[in-house]
């Protein structure tokens, strides 16, 4: 439905060109994709924003790490833009916030400039404190250790290993490095700590302790989002995400397996 000139100005604010609308849509898409949203949500958001601000023709081609966008209206010519978006960490709070904002934009509550400021705020929203993340990793590991058949001492051991694991992820290993190497190291570290604690007498079932303490490394978001993308016929990005998840899982498993077998060989036997 072609919007009249007045209507457009009322919704967008004064002197806003089509190009700025496109940039806004692209910005929203960028945050979503970076934070781990599914592809159809990114597409849907871009379309909603365009429709709300009176863009008539738009086409967005989205991959898991890039957006290709063209759009235009009767008043101005076509606008095209390609943006590369590297796979990054999971920020479901940002996905929720952009989702809410795009609803409000559809209802006509924000001009383009206002929406842009709000997106800026979402993009720079504070991360969870490192202390909380370390505690959460420990508590989660301990709780899952029970589910894998561990006893309470096992859970305590898993709690310590899980917390230590996040300490090394957040501090010494926080620099750009190959994902494979990073996860190999994390898996090896987990297995080493678990064996150490069990041989010191905290915990009995090495199996449950390691099982619990590697859960923080399981790439749950990449896996579930990948499945949903494949379910929606977005095969390219779905398979990229699944590959990412599998790579992480296998590197962790390899790290754990190799470490345990080395210890096994050195000590000539292993309790538990």
């Amino acid at each position, binding site marked *: 439905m072609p919007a009249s000139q007045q209507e457009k100005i009322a919704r967008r604010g004064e002197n806003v060109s089509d190009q700025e609308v496109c940039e806004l849509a692209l910005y929203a898409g960028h945050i979503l994709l970076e934070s781990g949203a599914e592809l159809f949500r990114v597409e849907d958001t871009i379309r909603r924003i365009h429709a709300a601000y009176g863009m008539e023709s738009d086409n967005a081609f989205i991959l898991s790490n890039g957006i290709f966008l063209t759009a235009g209206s009767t008043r101005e010519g076509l606008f095209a833009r390609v943006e590369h978006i590297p796979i990054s960490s*999971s920020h479901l709070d940002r996905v929720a916030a952009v989702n809410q904002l795009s609803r409000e934009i559809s209802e006509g509550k924000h001009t383009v400039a206002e929406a842009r400021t709000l997106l800026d705020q979402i993009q720079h929203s504070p991360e969870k404190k490192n202390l909380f993340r370390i505690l959460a990793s420990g508590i989660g590991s301990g709780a899952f250790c029970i589910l894998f058949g561990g006893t309470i001492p096992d859970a305590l051991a898993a709690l310590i290993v899980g917390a230590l694991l996040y300490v090394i992820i957040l501090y010494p290993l926080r620099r750009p490095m190959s994902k494979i190497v990073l996860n190999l190291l994390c898996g090896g570290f987990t297995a080493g700590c678990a064996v150490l604690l069990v041989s010191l007498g905290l915990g009995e079932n090495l199996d449950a302790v390691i099982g619990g303490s590697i859960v923080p490394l399981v790439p749950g978001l990449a896996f579930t989002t990948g499945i949903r993308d494949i379910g929606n016929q977005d095969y390219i990005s779905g398979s990229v995400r699944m590959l990412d998840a599998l790579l992480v899982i296998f590197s*962790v498993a390899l790290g754990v397996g190799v470490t345990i077998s080395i210890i096994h060989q050195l000590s000539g036997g292993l309790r538990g």
Partner: protein
Amino acid sequence: MAEILDLVWECAMALVGTIAFALLFSVPRQYYLWCGLIGGAGWAAYRLLSPFWGRTAAIFCAAALVIFLSRLRAVRERCPVTIFMVAGLFPLVPGAGIYWTVYELVMDNPAAASQRGTEALTDAIAIVLGIIIVFELPQKWFRVLARIGHRSGGSP
């Protein structure tokens, strides 16, 4: 009796663990409790069904239940469904199974490795099917269900 207590204790741990991982995925704070409840419900379904139907079918049903509850909650809260489902699926994901597979391979036990590997693979396939099938249910049903729950004074 002891079995029931065990089950309750495990579900409580699933709840706590799910909330902890929700925090790691930066889920907004107001949804923590629901993430935990959904994770606990998934684990309860798995534990209750696995003696009768075997583990693979139980994992399928548990994953389906998690997705169903997540969609219901997402419609009610008007927020992305990913928020509830990612953490809720965590207790069911065969992360440990995959690491045992590789461990047995490294230790040169191909028979044990293939057994562990098959288990992990069937678990993963069960979860995938659970996710895809429940996502095929029309969104309308969830809107209606959410409205019914609202009217009969269900939880806010």
